[in-house]
């Protein structure tokens, strides 16, 4: 009886990875993402402060909004004074900025990159397109609501939002983080099956593992 339980739990733990051929299955990890609860409160507050003060954003321009990220680095807006820095690898970054509309092609990369970031991780969705599709609301190829696919912490509206509003969004994010409310990572793990179902519904050529570690 006990043994069977363990087997079932294990089955639940491991992902099917149906999108991969048998040969490739051995090359990808099939572990499920797990909810990692926060540590003791005081300690977690300190960590949240540090997380808020050091936001490394993934240098991945997913849409037209990426053009707005460049001015942020310049001397005019200088995001570095807020502890924000670009980082080329998702492994090392904590903020993912969805730069505007996400096409079917991009969403696959977005999901992959998001899953490869180590939690806690935060998402800022930029522009109207990410909220409801914006001017592409009826496009056959554009994602309307990005938070059906990955959890979003902050939406910055506009088409396009100016760097100032982006900075405001960052500050809002910082507040959320400090308050301990920006927990998209655990949310994603908790509702993993739902997110995955949504993702797989629109991404037809699913040739990745179910969770991209």
């Amino acid at each position, binding site marked *: 009886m006990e043994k069977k339980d363990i087997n079932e739990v294990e089955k639940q733990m491991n992902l099917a990875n149906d999108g991969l051929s048998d040969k490739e299955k051995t090359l990808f990890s099939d572990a499920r993402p797990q909810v*990692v609860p926060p540590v003791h409160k005081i300690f977690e507050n*300190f*960590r949240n402060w*540090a*997380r808020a*003060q*050091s936001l*490394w954003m993934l*240098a991945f321009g997913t849409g037209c909004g990426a053009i707005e990220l460049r001015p942020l680095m*310049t*001397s005019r807006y*200088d995001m*570095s*004074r807020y*502890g924000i*820095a670009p980082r*080329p*690898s998702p*492994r*090392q970054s*904590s903020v993912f900025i969805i730069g505007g509309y996400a096409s079917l092609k991009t969403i696959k990369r977005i999901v992959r990159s998001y899953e490869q970031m*180590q*939690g*806690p991780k935060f998402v800022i969705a930029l522009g109207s397109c990410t909220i409801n599709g914006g001017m592409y609301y009826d496009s056959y190829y554009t994602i309307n609501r990005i938070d059906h696919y990955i959890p979003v912490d902050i939406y910055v509206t506009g088409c396009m939002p100016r760097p100032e509003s982006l900075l405001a969004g960052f500050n809002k994010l910082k507040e959320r983080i400090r308050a301990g409310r920006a927990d998209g*990572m655990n949310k994603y793990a908790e509702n993993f099956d739902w997110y995955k179902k949504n993702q797989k519904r629109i991404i037809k050529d699913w040739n990745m593992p179910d969770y991209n*570690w």
Partner: protein
Amino acid sequence: MDIWTKIFYAVISVVIATIYGLALGGVVRKIYARVHGRYGPPVWQPFIDIIKTHAKRVAVSHGIMFYLGPVFRFAGGLGTYLFIPVIFGSAVFANFSMAGDLLLVMYFIFFGQLGMALGAGEGGHPYSPLGIARGLSQMTTFEVPFALSVIALAIQYHTLNITAIVAAQQGSILNWTLFTNPFAVVAAMISMLGMNMHSPFSIVLAPQEIPIGPPIEMNSSFLATLQTNRGLFVAAKLILFMNLYFGGATNLVVMIVKTFLIYMFSVFVGAAFPRFRPEQAMRFFLKWPTIIGIISIIFVAYL
């Protein structure tokens, strides 16, 4: 001196050096920002970054060597630092310099590099070996002028004992190697540009070409370990250069002033120049600095 006191001293020494090194990093960022006309991050930003990186809830590991890579790297930094006598005449900052001389320090630098290269290699990302290949190749070239300069020192002072080299430079500012053997200092300082991997020699991390290269797969505490080491290692290298070429230090303040100024040299060069292509960078080291290094040897040995 019993071993526990020694270890206690070493801990103090290491902590101070690490903090100093990280702060130096913050200052550099600030300076870069000012050169760009920005405000820049706070000086303590490196510390926050390290805490934040440690605060990641999940770490992805590719295997045991990947796990140990940052450990090797940090151990390399620690070891390098611990084999250098930091402050002349101080028991606390003498570290473990009695275990070996300058050659030990020069070779211990490789310990961390090799370990890190192996750890990054197990990560399996193609950019890691690309970056490592660049880094190792560049290392072979900037080591040449540096080695020549060190040989010149050995000829000049008849010793490879760092403490003895510092002792020989005491007394007057004119006793510094900088004035007694300027060629050796020039060669070594140019090779330091390569060692610190600021532009124009920043071909290893090169964010635009091979997104930060070797540590691309490093995350969470692995990355934090690397960042901590970066602070310590910079401090160690600067102290080594200070000891060898700029008369060493008799107290902490002198040490901080001197190493800061030494570091500023490479920072200013870095802020002012764009990046070389790999083979340009390497050929550069094999030309002028090497010739200067040879001149420095001729200068002390045969003139």
